[in-house]
């Protein structure tokens, strides 16, 4: 930016060790031994009291995974992961059926309190009578408590942990699990299929508009625990659901692996809105520690006129490898991707989306805003493909990158593949620093420099912030502020 000298100094001086959410909860943990083998998978499956077919499914995936090779195409660098040096199962000890929040370990509640997670309804509802947020909180690998279940049941919405769903709704799981991200999909998705421990399951039946925003907070807590969530959301004909996912993790020295899979299925006229705020521990200022976040997220617009919208705010993790995608199978289906990716310190982000146009008159929209500071590398990697038979496909893509400091990198790698002449595809990308004119304009009106920069950054990401549900928009803005602390005021 020819960033004024103070800004540069401050960016250099940022101590991301001060990671606001870096603390550790001391709770007894029920843990499987380190390492990955068929026995561990049997152990996980048994712990979850899963039916035989689920175990088979996992073992098949594991066998497949053994033959696969770790992908290397992303612009991220990290030491080789020893998959046998990780724990694949850890569950808070006193998990056996708390019926109310009062039964939950107070230590755990305090952890959430520190994170600012509104677990208690009273707190959630304080002042906001109309907005209810159901929380299916994942603490390490097991769902601890689920609220608002009753109200959801009344509407016919199923919202529970995926382990419960496997036991209680095997027919839905059999029909949908792995139908969007098959077990053979990619290295990390296959690993997830073999060892996933928990996650959320949402089923919104025909014609139902889910009466509240659904949300899950993931938190990695136990040392060396890979966390492998599996989320499955199904919206039947005409249904609507908005799902929020937010993550924070405590400070760690060793790198932690996180390989989640999220599958969304939207049938005719259904709409799914999936929002993420991710602020896992990014590592310290030397680039030590931090979460490895290798996620496969995919939505299938299976029905006509269906719509899937991804919104993400990525500020955490040492490494992010994440491409929430939409398969636009149904005619007139729509896919959207709104993303803010902020990297600072030694963070590496390789993220983007895929829009696969298969049906007729499908449309997609991609808005991606990358902000790099420190010595981080921030890559947008996205694909828009129009199938031979996808008449009248429309896509608009806009990726903007903002660089703060001259030691970081911003990269854009879009893949555009068009096989139908009626398609209309537009892509634009820009990379720049904060313009001196804009800064001058603000400062000339008496706004201090750092504040002016914050203002401009906020304007830069506005298009995406607006897509977030209210509850998240505030948190997201706060997070961006924390992530860039020192560099943008």
């Amino acid at each position, binding site marked *: 930016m020819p960033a004024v000298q103070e800004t540069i100094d401050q960016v250099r001086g940022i101590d991301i060790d001060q990671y606001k959410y870096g603390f550790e909860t001391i709770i007894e943990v029920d843990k499987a031994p380190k390492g990955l083998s068929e026995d561990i998978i049997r152990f996980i499956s048994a712990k979850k009291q899963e039916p035989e077919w689920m175990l088979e499914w996992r073992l098949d995936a594991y066998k497949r995974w053994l033959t696969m*090779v770790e992908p290397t195409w992303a612009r991220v660098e990290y030491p080789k992961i020893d998959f046998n040096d990780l724990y694949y199962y850890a569950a808070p000890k006193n998990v056996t059926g708390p019926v109310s929040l009062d039964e939950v370990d107070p230590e755990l509640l305090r952890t959430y309190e520190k994170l600012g997670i509104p677990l208690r309804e009273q707190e959630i509802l304080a002042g906001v009578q109309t907005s209810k947020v159901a929380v299916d909180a994942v603490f390490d690998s097991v769902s601890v408590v689920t609220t608002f279940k009753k109200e959801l049941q009344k509407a016919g919405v199923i919202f529970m942990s995926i382990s419960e769903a496997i036991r209680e709704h095997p027919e839905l799981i059999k029909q949908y699990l792995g139908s969007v991200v098959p077990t053979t999909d990619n290295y990390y998705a296959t690993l997830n299929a073999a060892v996933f421990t928990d996650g959320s399951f949402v089923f919104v039946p025909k014609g139902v508009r889910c009466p509240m925003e659904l949300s899950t907070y993931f938190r990695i807590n136990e040392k060396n625990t890979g966390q492998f969530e599996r989320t499955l959301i199904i919206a039947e004909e005409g249904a609507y659901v908005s799902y929020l996912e937010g993550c924070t993790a405590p400070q760690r020295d060793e790198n932690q692996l996180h390989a989640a899979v999220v599958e969304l299925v939207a049938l005719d006229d259904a709409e799914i809105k999936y929002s993420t705020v991710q602020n896992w521990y990014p590592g310290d200022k030397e680039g030590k520690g931090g979460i490895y976040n290798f996620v496969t997220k995919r939505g299938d617009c299976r029905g006509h006129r269906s719509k899937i919208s991804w919104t993400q705010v990525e500020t955490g993790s040492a490494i992010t490898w994440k491409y929430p995608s939409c398969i636009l199978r149904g005619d007139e289906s729509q896919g959207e991707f709104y993303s803010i990716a902020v990297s600072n310190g030694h963070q590496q982000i390789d993220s983007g989306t895929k829009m696969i146009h298969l049906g007729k008159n499908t449309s997609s929209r991609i808005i991606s805003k990358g902000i790099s500071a420190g010595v981080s590398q921030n890559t947008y990697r996205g694909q828009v493909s129009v199938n031979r038979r996808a008449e009248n496909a429309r896509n608009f893509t806009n990726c903007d990158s903002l660089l703060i400091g001259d030691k970081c990198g911003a990269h854009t790698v879009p893949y555009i593949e068009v096989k139908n002449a*009626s398609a*209309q595809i*537009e892509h*634009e*990308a*820009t990379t720049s620093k904060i313009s001196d004119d804009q800064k001058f304009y603000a400062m000339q009106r008496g706004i201090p420099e750092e504040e002016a920069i914050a203002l401009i950054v906020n304007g830069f990401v506005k298009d995406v912030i607006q897509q977030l549900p209210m509850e998240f928009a505030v948190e997201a803005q706060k997070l961006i502020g924390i992530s860039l602390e020192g560099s943008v005021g």
Partner: protein
Amino acid sequence: MNIQTNQPASRLTAAETALVDAFAAQIGELPGNGAVTGTRDRLLDDLKKAGLPTRRIESWHYTDLKNLLRAVPDRVAGAAIDPVAALVKGATVLSILQGQADATSSINGVTISAFRDQLTDGSAMAGLTALDKDDAIGRLNGSFVRDGLVLAIAAGAEIDAPIELQALHGEGQIHTRFPVSFGAGSKATIIERHQSAADGAALVSSISDITLEDGAEITWIILQQQGAADTHLAQIRAKLGTDAKLRLYVVNAGGKLVRQELRIEVQGEGAELTLRGVNLLGGDTHTDVTLVLGHNVPHTNSTETFRNVVFDKASGVFQGMIRVAPDAQKTDAKMACNTLLMSDDGDFSVKPELEIFADDVICGHGATVADIDRNHLFYMMARGVPENKARGLLVNAFVAEIVEELEDEALVEPLEEIISVWLDKHA
């Protein structure tokens, strides 16, 4: 744990085997001293080990050469080919017929020699390297290259008449090279023309190695009109010195399998690149234009515009990577790639890439793929222009706009003529 199952001992395809065999047959007669022959051996060995690139190699993602290059024609020596008239009136034609250079012409301010002499005396060594581990064209050409033209434009020389490098060939294998250096402050216009003069499949590899010394102002036009059965694997390597200005115009209007790599390094402050491209794709061609542009020092500018028209079963690719090095502040780079996809049997893939390591830069790229704008069509049809004709006019305007930027009528007219003739034939 991670058992590598996808890399068995590599088996050579028919084309790869043919190349290895051809090399064994030709090595005895390929020009070159000991060092050159050693380099050729090594390049071929690398080619053999790596195989022809597949889509798993990122820079060849859309051109799976291993799969697309089915056969390699035998070398045909001494085919009789006559030069054609110069593209531009008054241009000096230097011809390379069936890969054999004629370096007997002389131009004031220009030293002209045959590349085979550089191979023989070993001075060609410096350029005989592959640019990176995936540089299949560099390896192929370096192994087999026999001849070409070496031009050195003297410092301060202003060459008024365009120089046409006329590469004509019939069937067979042709591997040529054009090392051209432009002295400080020199001015010139070069037309690099590749054209098939006979039916029958040819495999052409060609590398132009261009150096612009400080302040040189050069217009370089590439006109590729290979035959419908030809494979054209070309590379343009260019280096720009301080305040050098390169205007590079590329017109692709032929070939069955075309890969054209533009590898440009901007190395002097104040340097400026203007890159314009027109790709006319018809029949069952697969044409891939891949640009790798490095802005390596502060205060450099570049603009790149490509216009593509796709008819029939043609398949087109544009990959454009702009890399801004750390400390290359004040870089201003803009790239656009616009495609008219006129046929549901055709396809076009675009991968514009930005790789930016400096903060005070303005870089952007835009890409569009669409059919002709209905409003434009309506506008013309409402004025009584029949649909067919209206479409023709709009497509023509879409690409002609690019060559018109050359401004010099003497250059614009013949290129527009080539575009019109091509469109009449395919539209």
